[in-house]
């Protein structure tokens, strides 16, 4: 019976990872669509929202089932707690990817999008994606070194968002025709900052799963 339990725990974990990387890909594809003004890719990302939501529901159900059947304790209990919190965070990350795809589609502007790069959005996106990826890898392997600097990395993201906000205002004042686009890009920066926060939430839960100690990353 216990073997079956550990098998189910392993399945839950691989399900959470699958969903995590699925959400991460939604975000990275949305950022690529933004950079390359690729409405086809943006539409595709938007449509993945349904699958994301289904994965979330199935994993949540599975976690509840394991709790009800086996009443896990100690590390097993912490692992399930971590799985449940992680799927909530990765679902948010995937949905921010969908929101960024929505920005691409709403602007639907064939002109070159130099403002995207001028505002350092791709750079910010890369940093955030690496934070999400490291949090998921830490969940996969239990290797806490991957999330050891999340607090500092999150500070960098916060500072970057602030800079982008200031720069955006400058562009808008220079040329009011950029206001709509700039406002949308500032939203993107805000979404990315939230994704970094969610990667910190995952990191907190992974730390708890591995050590039993609750920490706050801020």
């Amino acid at each position, binding site marked *: 019976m216990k073997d079956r339990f550990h098998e189910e725990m392993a399945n839950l974990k691989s399900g959470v990872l699958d969903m995590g990387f699925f959400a991460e890909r939604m975000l990275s594809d949305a950022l690529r669509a933004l950079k390359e003004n690729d409405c086809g890719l943006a539409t595709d990302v938007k449509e993945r929202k349904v699958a994301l939501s289904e994965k979330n529901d199935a994993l949540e159900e599975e976690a509840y089932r394991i709790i009800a059947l086996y009443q896990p304790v100690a*590390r097993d209990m912490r692992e399930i707690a971590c799985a449940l919190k992680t799927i909530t965070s990765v679902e948010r990350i995937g949905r921010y990817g969908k929101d960024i795809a929505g920005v691409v589609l709403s602007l639907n502007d064939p002109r070159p999008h130099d403002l995207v790069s001028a505002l350092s959005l791709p750079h910010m996106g890369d940093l955030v994606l690496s934070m999400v990826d490291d949090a998921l890898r830490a969940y996969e392997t239990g290797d806490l070194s991957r999330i050891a600097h999340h607090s500092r990395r999150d500070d960098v993201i916060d500072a970057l968002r602030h800079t982008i906000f200031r720069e955006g205002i400058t562009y808008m004042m220079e040329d009011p025709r950029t206001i709509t686009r700039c406002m949308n890009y500032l939203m993107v920066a805000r979404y990315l900052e939230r994704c970094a926060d969610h990667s910190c939430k995952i990191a907190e839960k992974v730390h708890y799963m591995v050590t039993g100690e609750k920490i706050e990353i801020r």
Partner: protein
Amino acid sequence: MNADTILAADRLSLWYGDTRALEEITMEVPDRRVTALIGPSGCGKSTLIRCFNRMNDILPGCRIEGRVTFHGQNVYDNGSDPVTLRRRIGMVFQKPNPFPKSIYENVAYGPRVHGVRDRKELDRIVERSLRRAALWDEVKDRLSHSAMSLSGGQQQRLCIARTLAVEPEVILMDEPCSALDPIATAKVEALIGELKEQYCVVIVTHNMQQAGRVSDYTGFMYLGRLIEFGETTQIFESPANELTENYITGRFG
């Protein structure tokens, strides 16, 4: 020693012949709390609680080193009287073992042995003990019936009432629910929660969920040693010792 410690083991070791069953156990049992002992079969949990009221003395070839203190007094001192000790530290066993007598007589037996003769006084003790054991309402109209007519769960609560009748301070329970169905188990568990208002309870259990539900402190034993002792929430959420972790998560045992 902590102020609320009522019972303590200090480097307690026990041998059955050449076999060492307990190895330098040191622990403090707090008053008015439930302390659970868990661990795989043969790890020494029952042996340990039997040391607390000197139930091992009668076994041939049994040798004890170290100290067990009750209110700071070593229970193995020469002047210590095991009969008095067992009145103050009562015990409930795995299988309900009522005497083949009436319900009333089962509860009145202990006080009688200890010299209570007055019928009214005995009536009071019987009612109070049965109430505390959450059995009064179920048996008050048939106190003269045989204890054997009761269900298993009722018999176990009768045994608890019998223990309470002699006004103990500590109640030791050796797997009190392992012979009971889930409903009777739930009743005994609820009772344990009430008993700790007035008594110190030490329970040996194979059922880890039960330890998690009823106890304030949990000790994990393995091969005669106390591996980890701490607050139950800590033991079940993040045990400090890997052996504890492996046992409670079902990776061995």
